[in-house]
């Protein structure tokens, strides 16, 4: 399988602070790869190096098998970037935003117009083509950012938190579009804070914390490995129950007012807990990526 991005021991420092502290990963052609991590983990710093915005401070970074710092232009012409903040041009209309951006890629005018038309249709913004940017809603802005990133028909699409701040409808809209692009063979690299988004879209992902990789793998594998199949959550657990969990050496997390028991054999344990210890406030549910994330990165606030 061809690898479109190869990062080895990648480092980014700001003064003496190591925002990205020697990470290695590979993205294969046609896959959707996710970078997850709490605020300040180093996701945006990593992405900025990937698209040639920030110079790296160590390690190796190849895109399409070429060094991004040696051949930034050739590489940039083949990738599309949707940055974390909206960088749409407020002096221009929706349609002009796409057409002017096309010029930066040397796309001829007629072709740019046609491409802009297709993309406006793709993101459902045709009726707003003449609208000024400040009049658009957050969801529209994000969709337009996505469309603009696609103007050059990129082989890799890089998305930094594509759905942050969107309502559920808009998020689903974006997911559908991304799934469509993936089915067309586009490689996608995205960061997100939404675990359901990562679980749904990503073939593989890594979790970053304080500039280092904690784990990497397919979402389901990560869940199985680090949490198990199911999770039991107990609201306001009693001391008796706590003791039982400790004595049985069940992997768990005690949040005070809430006890989370991982792994176990699911049904059997749940049955035992509900009959012997708690009549109510005890739920059995499927383990999710969020459990993995919180288990690995802890529950304290970052930054």
């Amino acid at each position: 399988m061809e690898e479109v991005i190869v990062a080895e021991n990648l480092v980014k420092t700001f003064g003496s602070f190591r925002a990205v502290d020697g990470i290695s990963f590979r993205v294969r052609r046609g896959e959707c790869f996710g970078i997850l991590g709490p605020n300040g983990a180093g996701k945006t710093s990593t992405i900025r190096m990937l698209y040639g915005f920030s110079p790296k401070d160590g390690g190796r970074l190849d895109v399409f098998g070429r060094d991004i710092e040696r051949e930034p232009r050739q590489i940039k012409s083949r990738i599309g970037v949707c940055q974390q903040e909206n960088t749409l041009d407020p002096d221009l209309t929706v349609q002009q935003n796409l057409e002017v951006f096309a010029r930066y890629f040397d796309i001829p005018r007629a072709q740019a117009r046609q491409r802009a038309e297709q993309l406006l249709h793709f993101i459902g913004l045709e009726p707003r083509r003449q609208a000024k940017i400040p009049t658009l809603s957050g969801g529209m802005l994000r969709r337009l950012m996505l469309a603009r990133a696609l103007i050059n028909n990129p082989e890799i699409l890089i998305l930094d938190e594509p759905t942050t701040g969107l309502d559920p409808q808009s998020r689903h809209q974006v997911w559908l579009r991304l799934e469509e692009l993936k089915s067309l063979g586009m490689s996608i690299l995205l960061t997100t804070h939404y675990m359901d988004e990562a679980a749904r879209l990503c073939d593989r992902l890594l979790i970053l914390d304080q500039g280092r990789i904690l784990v990497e793998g397919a979402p389901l594998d990560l869940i199985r490995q680090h949490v198990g199949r199911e999770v039991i959550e107990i609201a306001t657990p009693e001391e008796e129950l706590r003791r039982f969990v400790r004595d049985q050496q069940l992997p768990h997390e005690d949040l005070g007012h809430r006890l989370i028991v991982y792994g176990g054999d699911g049904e059997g344990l749940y049955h035992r807990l509900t009959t012997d210890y708690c009549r109510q406030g005890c739920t059995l549910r499927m383990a999710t990526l969020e459990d993995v994330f919180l288990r690995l990165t802890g529950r304290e606030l970052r930054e």
Partner: protein
Amino acid sequence: MKSPPIAVIRRTSRIWQRNWTVYRQTWKISFVPPLLEPLFYLLAFGVGLSALVGEVSYRGEALSYVAFIAPALVAINIMNNAFFENTYASFVRMYYQKTFDAILATPLSLTEIILGEIVWGATKSVIGTAIMLVVISAFGLIAYPHGLLLLPVALLGGLAFGAIAMLFTSVVPNIETFNLPVFLFVTPMFLFSGTFFPVDTLPVWFRSLALFLPLTHLVRLTRDLAYGRLDLSLLWAVGYLLLFCAIVTPLAIGRMRRRLIR
């Protein structure tokens, strides 16, 4: 990795085109200041002041005060157009609109973005000059065909003031800070570069100071060309402005790189 110059020019022109696209939407408003400004000045200084001032002696020639200041107004307009475009307007694009950040994800480089901005600032100087020429010519104050050379001079002056403006843009912490270069750089030049009175009337030490100011040289060019005097001494002024561009432009690009590339 080196690119052929033609490719750099093409990519630089993309930035210029972006600004042109925006300008075309508001051109009616942009046309007003260069149309009215010379009229106001000619009225106030020319008609109002000239009664007091009478004639001015410039390089051995007696001129009416209106004829004396009209070419200086062109030079000031060249300075202002490029300077304000590449300070306030470029800062808004860079800082608030994140336009440069967006473009840096495309094949364009930071150098090309900054060059494109400066050339755009100079373009506004040229447009402003063209409009002013029409107005001032109506008063019969420009000698042709030499007067047409004011257009390339506007380009050169625009590049010089655009470059220095870009240098300020690369270092100011916020938009309010532009007050500083405006009051310490632009305003003194506006007053003391041989604009409203000849530099020769200044004390010697002040005169040598004025010779360091780019506007002094630009005024020299616009004035002599407006009067139809074309002699080799003008090459000094052209040389000064070229040198100014050659030194300040790379500085501006370098500082901008330090500011934007993290």
